[in-house]
């Protein structure tokens, strides 16, 4: 699927993780102009990030997060070559996962 982009950089013992996810993030409040029907909600509910298999961040999201969400956070530790994994799951049960090495 390839919906996740990760950039993780370690500097002075702190790793900065930046990630972009391709997702429509529909609120479920908006109407289709032609049919007048509500466009069903479709958004990422849960996103987790692991560093070498240990969870460093777990977030619950609602439909108020913008389309194609951006996420950035920092954690102590992490070295060049360590593995960063991001998983997400949306309200329809779709999910994706990507692992990348810290640069």
């Amino acid at each position, binding site marked *: 699927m390839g919906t996740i982009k990760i950039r993780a950089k370690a500097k002075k013992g*702190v790793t900065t993780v930046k990630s972009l996810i391709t997702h*429509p*993030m*529909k*609120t479920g*409040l*908006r109407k289709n102009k032609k049919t007048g029907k509500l466009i069903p909600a479709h958004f990422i*509910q*849960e996103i987790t990030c692991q560093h070498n298999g*240990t*969870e*460093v*961040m*777990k*977030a*619950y*999201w*609602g*439909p*108020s*997060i*913008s*389309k194609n*969400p*951006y*996420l*950035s*956070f*920092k*954690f*102590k*530790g992490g070295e060049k070559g360590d593995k960063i994994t991001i998983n997400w*799951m949306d*309200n329809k*049960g779709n999910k994706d996962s990507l692992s990348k090495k810290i640069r």
Partner: protein
Amino acid sequence: MLSNTMKRRTFLKGSLVAGGAGVALSLGLIPTVVIGAWPKSAFKSKDVNGALNGVLNASDTVASDKIKIKAPKIAENGAVVPVTVSTDLANVESITILTSGNVNPMAAHFNLSSNTLPTVSTRVKMAKTSDIIGVIKADGKLFSAKKSVKVTIGGCGG
């Protein structure tokens, strides 16, 4: 010979049933467990207090100047408002971002590990001019700060 094929058939049947159970397990059970963790009441709540109760089991927050919310004063496009919430507080367990003007104020709730620095950035939608509220749980207490963002175009897109 006949009995042999019969055995094979029953064996196949048995494995099919077992396989079916496996599929049911992976399709049905595991996602419900994961979805169960998502605090639905918080995200469905139409007010800020209800949202906080849903995710943190409390809504009494103490205003703190140690929380910094970085967001534009005027958002040209309410559908994409970049927000960064960070703090100097110690032992931060979670960061919650709310948008007071939206139908459902709850935007995001981040659980942080002990090694994670208390700063998160993301982008939120804002339906109208309102406050972005950052709530931080540190040492078991809730602290909050807010910042007003003026939205010039409605942000219900997406």
